[in-house]
């Protein structure tokens, strides 16, 4: 039995359906990310787990106990907010001890636990400071310690890194993940940032318009998107319309250029039009190492993106991009050159009928 279960969860505000038949089982110690664009229902789902919203339908169980209608203060669920939500009138230590005092723990136990939490977030020198005396990153670490102090059953993180600058965001997400792993706590992380979700999660739930589009490991979500939305939303994508040539051999044609795909072609027949997708980094120039697909192309443009160089190419009449790592000895083609690019059969994804 799963540690945290959301079964047929729906939420309506008036006539607007925000979450629709959401089902998810989470194991103890798992780190799950809800990923999706604004308004997809990810935060509402998280708030239902926290108890700030009551589902219109469905049940939520934590550790076998139905908490669907429990008040937020009766769930023992830790929550971290985008806006930190530290109590401005309390010091770091007082913020961390807040939940312990509510629980009426013994004074000695509170002191010990606060010390432990402060050490966990490496803010020993800041215990007596007020929130306004700390940086954004430090405040969010205090919020993390405060949420963890009560040893919650589940840790909920509502876009906790969105208000921070890029460098702090990267280091803090690694810190959050490391602490979560060390404590073995079950966590749900809401984000609209795909890189964040891919880098931190055991599994990702991709949501769109209140529905679950796909649940899978970051590897599955990125490499084997099940829907067009997931393919588009997670990572960059080359899309094209292809004609089925041979379903047995997985052959497709894009503007007369033949591609071989490992994707299943159940229900398709010769002559059908399908939408295909290839990630830019799955292409490489054929001068390197040839794979199953080797196709002619023309170089249209080259863009430097720091660690990556993006080459815009034309295959037939369709535009594609090729991402290649930037290294000093990289020999790039020139704009207008005729080249060959190669990709594996697995790289050619079929998204559905055109």
């Amino acid at each position: 039995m799963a540690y945290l279960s959301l079964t047929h969860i729906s939420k309506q505000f008036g006539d607007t359906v925000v979450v629709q038949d959401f089902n998810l089982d989470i194991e103890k110690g798992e780190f799950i990310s809800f990923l999706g664009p604004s308004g997809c229902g990810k935060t509402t789902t998280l708030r239902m787990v926290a108890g700030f919203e009551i589902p219109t339908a469905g049940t939520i169980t934590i550790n076998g106990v139905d908490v669907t209608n429990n008040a937020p203060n009766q769930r023992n669920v830790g929550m971290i907010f985008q806006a930190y939500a530290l109590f401005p009138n309390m010091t770091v230590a007082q913020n961390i001890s807040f939940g312990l005092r509510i629980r009426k723990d013994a004074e000695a136990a509170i002191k010990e636990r606060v010390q432990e939490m402060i050490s966990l977030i490496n803010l020993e020198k800041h215990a007596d400071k007020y929130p306004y005396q700390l940086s954004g990153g430090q405040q969010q670490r205090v919020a993390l310690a405060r949420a963890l102090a009560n040893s919650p059953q589940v840790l909920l993180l509502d876009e906790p890194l969105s208000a921070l600058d890029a460098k702090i965001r990267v280091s803090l997400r690694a810190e959050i993940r490391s602490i979560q792993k060390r404590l073995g706590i079950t966590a749900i992380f809401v984000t609209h940032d795909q890189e964040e979700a891919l880098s931190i999660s055991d599994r990702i739930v991709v949501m769109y318009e209140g529905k679950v589009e796909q649940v899978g490991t970051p590897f599955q979500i990125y490499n084997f998107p099940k829907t067009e939305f997931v393919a588009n939303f997670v990572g960059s994508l080359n899309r094209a319309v292809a004609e089925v040539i041979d379903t047995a051999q997985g052959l497709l044609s894009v503007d007369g250029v033949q591609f071989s795909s490992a994707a299943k072609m159940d229900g398709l027949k010769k002559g059908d039009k399908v939408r295909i997708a290839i990630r830019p980094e799955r292409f490489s120039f054929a001068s390197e190492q040839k794979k199953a697909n080797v196709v002619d192309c023309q170089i249209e443009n080259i863009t430097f993106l720091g660690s990556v160089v993006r080459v815009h190419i034309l295959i037939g009449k369709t535009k594609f991009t090729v991402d290649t790592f930037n290294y000093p000895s990289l020999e790039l083609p020139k704009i207008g050159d005729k080249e060959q690019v190669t990709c594996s059969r697995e790289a050619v994804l079929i998204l559905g009928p055109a």
Partner: protein
Amino acid sequence: MKIFSGLRSISLWSGFWYLLGVLYFILPLYATFDFSMRLERDKYNFVAYQKAFADPNFLKTFAYSNILAAVTIVISLLLVVPTSYWIRLRLPEARRIVEYITTLAIVIPAIVMGFGLVSVYGAPINLPFTSIQLTDSLLNTRLGTNFIIIMGYTVLALPLMYRSIDTGMRTIDVRTLTEAAQSLGANWTTIIVRVILPNLRASILSGALLTFAIVVGEVTISSIMNVPAFSPYLWLLGQHKAYEPAALSFASFLMIWASMGIIQIVTGGRAQAAGAH
């Protein structure tokens, strides 16, 4: 150089307006003080103050007004803090309606409110839509009169108290703080007492001070209700004496300034802490 000359002209103009503002407030106060010191011919002393404070009616009316003010402050806070909190938390759409209601106290003249209170509560109170009498006129007893006048003062203080508290609520993210406290196991009482109120300390004190100033300085309703309040006493004193009312007016100013100073001292650091997050 142009930038510096620009800055200089800005600071000159700000200095001018600042000085004008200071003079506007200080000059009448200084004139009152100066006048209050000249009770005895060719002498400059505090005799007017001694005489004013020695009058037993001063202490009686002043104490009465202070008690009214204290009770009004408590009732206003009990009414406004939960209302403003709930509006911020759950009923943001009701904010405009409440703001409109609170401004009525400014729009309706105090004399209208005073006569309104007398005409409504001066008569026996019946069960609505019946002739069954619930109570005799509330104004027939001292307690009833005090109750009615405090209710009147609460309405008078409502616009300032509501705005003070609401401004305080705006500086803290009420909703997120409430949810954070809830997720840590706090109930409503704990949230209000330990999270919301401490962060509203500055606004509560400024609302209380404004209410205090309104109640102690209010003449119209207290005269209509014929209660022994400080302002009607001051007004009455002014009818047949010149220097003592001036002395008491100046003393009232000093008292209010002292209160403001205390508020600054008490709330200074914490108010900043609450505001900057």
